């Protein structure tokens, strides 16, 4: 089993790219902030998570600052790396960054 569901803010986003075979591919950096229960105690949680979106969903117009909810799995960045990357299977835009709209 390998499922991660997370709410996060898009912290950084690369321009839409394509795999060599032509699938749309989007690399993002997600920033997560929440409160969680641990040992029966409330605590704050923060993390930054690299993520990738492959397939038609990658065409979604995302901007830095957007809040999203994502479901996916974790995999190492490469065979040579221990770093973990979230591969997003489902994504939901919760709130677009308002400041940008006002401009």
């Amino acid at each position, binding site marked *: 089993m390998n499922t991660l569901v997370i709410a996060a803010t898009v912290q950084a986003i690369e321009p839409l790219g394509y*795999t*060599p*075979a*032509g*699938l749309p*591919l989007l690399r993002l950096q997600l920033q997560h902030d929440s409160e969680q229960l641990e040992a029966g105690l409330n605590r704050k949680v923060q993390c930054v998570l690299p993520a*990738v979106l*492959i*397939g038609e969903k990658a065409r979604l117009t995302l901007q830095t600052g957007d809040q999203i909810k994502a479901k996916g799995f974790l*995999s*190492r*960045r*490469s*065979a*040579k790396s221990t770093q973990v990357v979230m591969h997003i299977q489902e994504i939901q835009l919760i709130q677009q960054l308002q400041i940008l709209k006002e401009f």
Partner: protein
Amino acid sequence: MSNANPAQSPVSAPRIVRVVLDVPLDQWFDYLNPGLPVLPGNRVVVPFAGRQLVAIVMAVTEDTEVPASKLKAILQVFDDVPLDAATLKLLRFCADYYHYPFGQTVLSALPLRLRQTKPATARKQWAYRLTTAVHDDALDKRQRVLARVIAALKMQSECSEAQLNTLSGSWRKAIAPLLANGVIIRREVVAVRPSMPASAEIPALNAEQAQAVTAILAQRQQFQPWLLFGVTGSGKTEVYIRLLEAILAEPQAQVLVMVPEINLTPQLESRFRSRLSQFTLVTLHSHLSESERLQHWQAAQSGAAQIVIGTRLSIFTPMPHLRLMILDEEHDSSYKQQDGMRYHARDVALVRAKQLQIPIVLGSATPSLESWYNATLDAAPANATAKKAAYGLLRLTRRAVAEAQLPQITCIDTVQMPAEGGLTPWLKQAIEHRLQRGEQSLLFINRRGYAPVLHCSACQWVADCHRCSAKIVLHLRQRVLRCHHCGEEQKIPVQCPSCGNPDLRPVGQATQRIEETLQQLYPQARVARVDRDTIQAKDALTEVLSAVHAGEIDILVGTQMLAKGHDFPNLTLVGVLDTDGALYSPDYRASERLFAQLMQVAGRAGRGEKAGEVLIQTAFPQHPLFAALRTQDYETYANTLLQERIVLQFPPAAYVAVFKAEAQEYALVEQFLKALVEAARHFIMQEVAQFTQLPTVYDAVRPGLARLNRMERGYVMLQCQHRGSLQLLLRAAVAWARHHPLQSKIRWVLDVDAYDV
């Protein structure tokens, strides 16, 4: 004679015609002459194994060992000019030396039309010209081909079909309406000799050029090879032109000028045409139509053409009054034929010059080590047993345009300054300076496609060719993976076939990717890419080159195709990306080739009045090759390499022949080659007394590319300091191989003086 059949032929004509055929059997065939007028060298049609084949008559005689009942008659004699004895002598030598069936040697030297059983007639050739002035405005902008044809016709009063062919493949269609209404008219011509504007400037020779011309002409009546060693841009072509003028002053005299690549012919052709317009000039190369090729060949054979410019295949063209041969860029590996009879056109040319007792000029900025060895033999007597005719060495050390300086060459250490997207910050800055100054840059990367490797970063899988032991190259624009060895194409996998990851990565740099990077970095710059993929169309290269000349290109990205011969006055920067692979290649010729290539590429910079700069990105800036390159010191580096070759007993210090064999299964190849090695060693032991020097027979090994196009490959190398001794062994080995029982299950070839394995 006793059992001669009196009913068969008239008394006067010899009864038996002895011919060679285009079949892989090294023998002559006897046919009966039903009384036709036949001479040696004639083309005839004979029945052979149920087919009709073109044959060349070697002899007419009265005797044959073939029983009269089996003797068939020749069917037809063509009345074209017979092959002359000198050409046949040259072909005989080649068949012997390269151990190739004589019949195939002879027939493959002929234009295709002469190998067919139909009478060979060349289609009529036409020359075209304008009758009235045509305004550019009158032309439809979309008719680009027509516009180009008209521009060409305006520039020179008359254009040949060959010249128009270089503009576009569809020129005939484009001009049809104008031909119909008489704006363009044509006249029939033989061996086209267009009149050119006489405005061509005649440059004065500098002292070295003048000395070279004088030296060669002083010995014009005898066999004498000359190595014209001239730095890039030193005006070798001008020396050739002066030689041609002098030699062709003799009535009827002919000159053969050879170039390594077809792409170089139009340039040389137009320079020769403008300066030597009083002589008939024809070209011979594989881009001609069969009809054109036949006509040009016949023009050479009849003596009508005084100048023949051609690629390696032109070496066998009969030229009855040949007085001089010139091989430009003599070091180029394109002179080596890599299939059929694997001859080296330079070596064949030397033999031809010797047979005809005429001078031969080998020109290069980076001579082959073979020629360098022969030209400097006196200085380094390394091989006392081999007696060779030393070449005359002529140096051109200065660039012909007085202001032109040799370019400044610098290495960029990619360990200290890593490249990003193939380009180091230093190189990028240099490109930006050129863009600001309106000058041109050339980026040289000897790999076409997008990236040499498609890699899965999740599991380390790499895309391979299914038919070869090689990686398959990503061509992103065409959306395929393409093998550069066998041509296999695969669809780009949507996901890694091994682990399923869709995020596959192109790794490494090739021309398409560099082009893309440049377009992203400098969106305002005009970038053009030149490699085998972009110039497949006949006129594509000419188009790009004229765009460069017209200043319509800022950055040129390309493979070795760009390295040769081209002259770009406004090009001041050459960037060399990623040549390190060749520095440590197992191929002993790799460094010689790389050095020549980099010298040639570097020579593209600063040929005009502006100084040139060459930046080489490498992880090994301390390599002696770069040290020699920086000082443009070919001589020292060549001598170093030569010492290496002498120590290792590689060419030119020794002669090398390679038996190459391939089959579906390596076991068969191995069995055959092992038996060959044994037989060869046995032969040497047995015939020890016949050898001046004993050849070395190496064990069978597999080449770097062990599998090519589903065939498992292996080879055996034979090496000897004495050419005759090696030939003795090769004759025995070939005879052995031709009768080996595995002969039908494996394919083998002998590559004498092999270039690579």
